[in-house]
């Protein structure tokens, strides 16, 4: 189950997309996601498909990994389509018992599905090509102006990178403790709800203990190495825009123009 969530799983490859500045990718993803809500016609859909396809091609990540994240939204997708199909007023095309399917409903459902799917794939492309640390670095730098409004940008992004870093560690730990207790005859599968919850105690207690121990150790280690928060801190690898980033922004602008044009020229 947990394995299906591709979101947040970096796929190492040497590609232009991987090498882009995380800020560029963040902005690009944001623009792409917003653009999905602009479009209402097949022409726009075509432009978005071409753009997404080109980016996926350039990222060199196998297509299978992109769509893996879709599995988790299958149910949501089905429900959305179902309601859009039946509850949109317009010209009826099909009548089953008391339910009417309209022409508008079909289009609406179709676009909704495409939007949702592209939304997931779009953000998956970013997380597959950017390490979580790089991502938080990008956010920190991108949001740096907020510092003037006394938003602790550095601290928040540090917390985020630590949290992200700890997810796999805690998952591994859970797995280990679960196995250790199963070796002692613990049973995590059978029984009713209350019994199951009770059976979790041997898992949760050691897990929390170890999480606190780790947090404590990490805090100590950071202080021992002189960490005092963001003030005066410099980066070993500062983020600097390269030529390819400006190129990417140009392409992005081109994409925006195309999709707007497509929206205006062919309103459905």
């Amino acid at each position: 189950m947990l394995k299906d969530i591709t979101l947040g799983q970096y796929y190492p490859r040497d590609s232009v997309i991987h090498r882009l500045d995380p800020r560029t990718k963040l902005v690009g993803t944001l623009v792409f996601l917003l653009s999905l809500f602009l479009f209402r016609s097949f022409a726009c859909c075509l432009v978005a498909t071409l753009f997404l396809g080109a980016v996926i091609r350039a990222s060199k990540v196998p297509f299978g990994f992109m769509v893996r994240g879709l599995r988790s939204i299958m149910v949501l997708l089905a429900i959305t389509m179902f309601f859009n199909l039946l509850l949109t007023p317009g010209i009826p095309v099909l009548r089953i018992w008391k339910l009417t399917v309209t022409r508008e409903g079909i289009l609406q459902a179709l676009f909704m599905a495409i939007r949702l799917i592209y939304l997931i794939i779009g953000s998956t492309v970013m997380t597959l090509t950017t390490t979580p640390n790089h991502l938080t670095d990008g956010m920190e730098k991108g949001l740096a102006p907020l510092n003037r409004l006394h938003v602790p940008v550095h601290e928040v992004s540090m917390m985020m990178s630590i949290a992200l870093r700890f997810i796999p560690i805690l998952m591994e730990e859970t797995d280990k403790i679960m196995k250790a207790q199963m070796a002692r005859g613990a049973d995590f599968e059978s029984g009713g709800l209350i019994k199951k919850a009770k059976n979790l105690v041997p898992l949760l207690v050691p897990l929390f203990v170890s999480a606190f121990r780790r947090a404590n150790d990490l805090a100590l280690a950071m202080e021992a190495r002189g960490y005092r928060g963001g003030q005066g801190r410099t980066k070993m690898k500062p983020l600097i825009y390269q030529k390819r980033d400006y190129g990417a922004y140009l392409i992005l602008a081109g994409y925006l123009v195309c999709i707007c044009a497509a929206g205006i020229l062919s309103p459905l």
Partner: protein
Amino acid sequence: MSIKIEHVSYSYGQGTAYEKKALDDISLEIPQGQFVGIIGHTGSGKSTLIQHLNGLMRASSGKIYFHGEDIYREGYDMRALRSKVGLVFQYPEHQLFEVDVFSDVCFGPRNLGLPPEEVEARAREALDQVGLGEPYYKKSPFELSGGQKRRAAIAGILAMHPEVLILDEPTAGLDPRGRDEILDQVAALQKERGMTVLLVSHSMEDVARYVERIVVMDDGRIRFDGTPKKVFAHYRELEEIGLGAPQTVYVLRGLAEKGFPVNTEATTVEEARDAILEALGRRNVC
């Protein structure tokens, strides 16, 4: 024979970018009552292998038999298997969860469905075997030192009276005395109860001293399998894969190379002493 492994392979992260073959076509037979040492450098697949033996991990391919029965057979009772093949994990102290040491040790036997008196009797016995006396019974596991936690965790498995006991580096981080105490106790149990013991260790000395057979793992495969004498005779190859032999082997080989007529087969300190004394006696140097 108690455990038989046939052509077992296992890969971590199958179908992802991080696929890693941890076991590669392993075949192994372990007879009842044998004391086996498993050695191998870090990441050679020792922990992965032993987790297959009680069904916690499922091989990607291959078969495992316990008392001649295929454990991957439909409807095989894995929980029963786990109670018979006791596995003490690397850093077992992380599994302690009860309010006090005694209840924690009771967890395993209680899961076997034994009556309460029997559970307590076994917990007492097991705690005694690992050298934790009465004063520790009511202590919280989190108040104990690292080594004491380790002992409590080992007691938790011993109390289940497994037929096969697997220990994954049980002595890492223990003082020399504690190490000897625990391993002596395990060796005694192996003799008394005819328990099969698998000891994963990085310490060549420990392995040489206690086990009757050594399995050397390297990069997911078995490189050597035989008595300590036979395996340590390959000490050069062992060094190549990041291991070595007990100090005694080096001392004796060094003496032999310098022309001292000593028998170089000995692996434990006592044997080495006898070998040297014998050689000295032969030359009448004393």
